[in-house]
């Protein structure tokens, strides 16, 4: 027996009563609720439409306009290396240092590793590397400026000249003008020690650098004559010894203003321009009282008053000058 075989009478249920009422038959709260409901529906619809439209747009871009995609999304081969520096290093040095494989892609590079390679050269003090899409790698570095030079010898190796920056870091000094390097004084009386990353910074270079900078700026005629800077008594006595090309020894104190000491030296040099009594030693580390030693003849290397044949009065005081034809470097020290 099936329901279709019967013609059942229609019975109406209360559910057939339409529940809609006109807004004017509603109370204020009812109208407010209705408005809120409509607003929620509108906002919900707008959100759904907005999200759908956004998704559609993204899908369309991904599907049809691959050329409109941002370049950053592509991973291209590195075609160009750009170096921005405040020093003398050039692009060849950069290429050699980074040694990037020819087929390396820009996104495939490990920038941290490349930066470590750049910073491994002590001449570079800071470095930053950025990818410039689609195919350019830009390296920005700041370089150390040399204030002095020194000779160092690795065990079993030949002596090698190193440049020393203001912060005491010694570096090979690639790309500097040889004429400029020739003007730099040699360092003496220093102790070098090796670390896993290279040489330890030289102690006291900041004081030396200040002295050299003051001399170069205020009395360049004197500075040009400075050949060796000895730091042998810097740590113990606070004194910097300067040996000039003409055999004079000048002692600077680190406690007093360098400018004042240079001015005194300049005055002394000007005052004692007697070629028969050349200045042999000037001690500027004692303040206003400046002991001065005169020689009797033109300085000779490893000269001593006794050897020159002068009497004691004319050769006084008895001072033994170090050899300055070549800077004294402790080449026996292991680096």
């Amino acid at each position, binding site marked *: 027996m*099936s329901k279709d075989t019967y013609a059942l009478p229609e*019975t*109406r249920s*209360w559910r057939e009563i339409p*529940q809609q009422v006109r807004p004017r038959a509603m*109370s204020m709260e*009812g*109208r407010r*609720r209705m408005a809120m409901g409509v607003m929620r529906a509108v906002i919900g619809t707008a959100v759904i439409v907005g999200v759908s439209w956004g998704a559609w747009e993204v899908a369309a871009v991904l599907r049809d306009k691959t050329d409109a995609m941002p370049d950053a999304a592509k991973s291209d081969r590195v075609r160009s290396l750009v170096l921005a520096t405040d020093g003398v290093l050039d692009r060849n040095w950069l290429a050699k240092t980074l040694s990037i494989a020819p087929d390396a892609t820009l996104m495939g590079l490990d920038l941290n590793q490349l930066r470590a390679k750049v910073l491994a050269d002590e001449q570079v003090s800071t470095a930053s590397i950025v990818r410039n899409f689609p195919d350019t790698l830009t390296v920005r570095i700041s370089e150390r400026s040399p204030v002095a030079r020194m000779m160092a010898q690795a065990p079993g190796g030949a002596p090698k000249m190193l440049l020393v920056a203001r912060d005491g870091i010694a570096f090979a000094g690639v790309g500097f003008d040889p004429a400029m390097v020739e003007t730099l004084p040699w360092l003496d009386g220093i102790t070098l020690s090796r670390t896993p990353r290279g040489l330890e910074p030289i102690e006291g270079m900041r004081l030396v650098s200040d002295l050299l900078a003051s001399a170069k700026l205020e009395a360049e005629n004197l500075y040009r004559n400075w050949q060796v800077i000895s730091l042998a008594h810097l740590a113990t006595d606070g004194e910097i010894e300067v040996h000039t090309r003409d055999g004079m020894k000048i002692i600077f104190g680190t406690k007093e203003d360098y400018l004042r000491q240079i001015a005194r030296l300049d005055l002394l040099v000007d005052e004692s321009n007697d070629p028969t009594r050349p200045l042999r030693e000037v001690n500027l580390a004692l303040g206003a009282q400046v002991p001065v030693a005169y020689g009797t003849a033109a300085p000779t290397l490893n000269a001593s008053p006794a050897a020159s044949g002068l009497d004691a009065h004319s050769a006084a005081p008895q001072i033994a000058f170090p050899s300055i034809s070549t800077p004294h470097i402790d080449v026996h020290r292991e680096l």
Partner: protein
Amino acid sequence: MSSNTTFIGAVEIGTSKITVLIGEFTGREIVIIGCGECSSRGVIKGSVVDYRAATECTHNALEIAERDANERIDYVYLAQTGGHLEGFYNEASLNVKAADNMIEMDDIRTVCDLAKAKELPLGRMVVHNIRRPFRVDGRLVPTSPENLVGQRLEVGYWTVHGQEQRLADNIHVIRGFNLEVRELVLSSLASGHMVTSMEERQNGVLAIDIGAGTTDYVLYRNGAPHTTGVVAVGGGHFTNDISIGLRLTECQAEKLKLRFGRAQVQARDKGEKVWLDGNYSIGDRQFPRHAIESITAARARELLEVVRKKLGQGFAPESCAGGVVLTGGGAKLPGIAECAANVFGTSARLGEAPSWVNENLRDPGYHTALGILYYGVSVQSDRSAAARRKGGFLRNVTRLFAST
């Protein structure tokens, strides 16, 4: 709060007051979280006669309840009462289709449709179809007879129907608050569900809810509602009779009824007098206590006799072991239980809410609203479960093959 939590409002638009309860329904349990109450205006005998006044009061009660719960109601279960509600019984039977006489779901559905199909007079609409237990070859089956073996399947429905306009008015009052009426629940079923236990309903019990304008009753047998009805007489008529009999205003009569009214005459001294106000104010008067008690007792007895008469043959003390349970505001009249016991010839008691109901909601005035909530949820759950069963994929496929 989980996403499937709903906030259900139970609304009773009564003659004297409008009650709203808000329940938080999680799908497993319902917790009452808000209550709102407001004096009723524009409602007489459960029917809306002044739309604006009734709307104002109802919306006020809804707002109070929402403020109390601090939540917004999602939809509403609405109590339905009034003299326009009527009921009739209709039954149908059918021979079981299968050759092995095993009853299938199709048989059950067909017999139910037949039993419910009864043409109503113009302007009448079904409010409830209350199914009575199935019978298989005369054997009572309280649950589903599916897979039982028998030749003849019978079922009967007690159909409650009401006047379309009055039902629509009640719904539109709620709709004016922009809330959907999800379920209409007969007041008698709601309050009866609250004040009777499952065991009482199984043994037979009569629940009478005496409101201000109407009295709703439901007779349970075999665990299911057997007969329901509404008498358009309530506690308000007691007040009205005192007012006429003692020549008082409604307000004064209500006061006397609440203080001295009884469902059985207790005063022996006919000369005993009681003060109207009792505060020595100017105009305070004395009235005979015996007269007050006589009026209320006569009215109470008359009301209960009307109920008994409307139940007719359906009610028999021997088939109503649970007795009579009285609830509603009118049940607070002293002696009403004894009066009911006399009229119905069986035990009678005042209904009490289950122990888990909050102390604030244990007053008989809240029983209907509470019942709406719990009865409505159970009805809706049954309907959802039936819909799920009906819509099962495998079941549909099976039916397709069966029909071919």
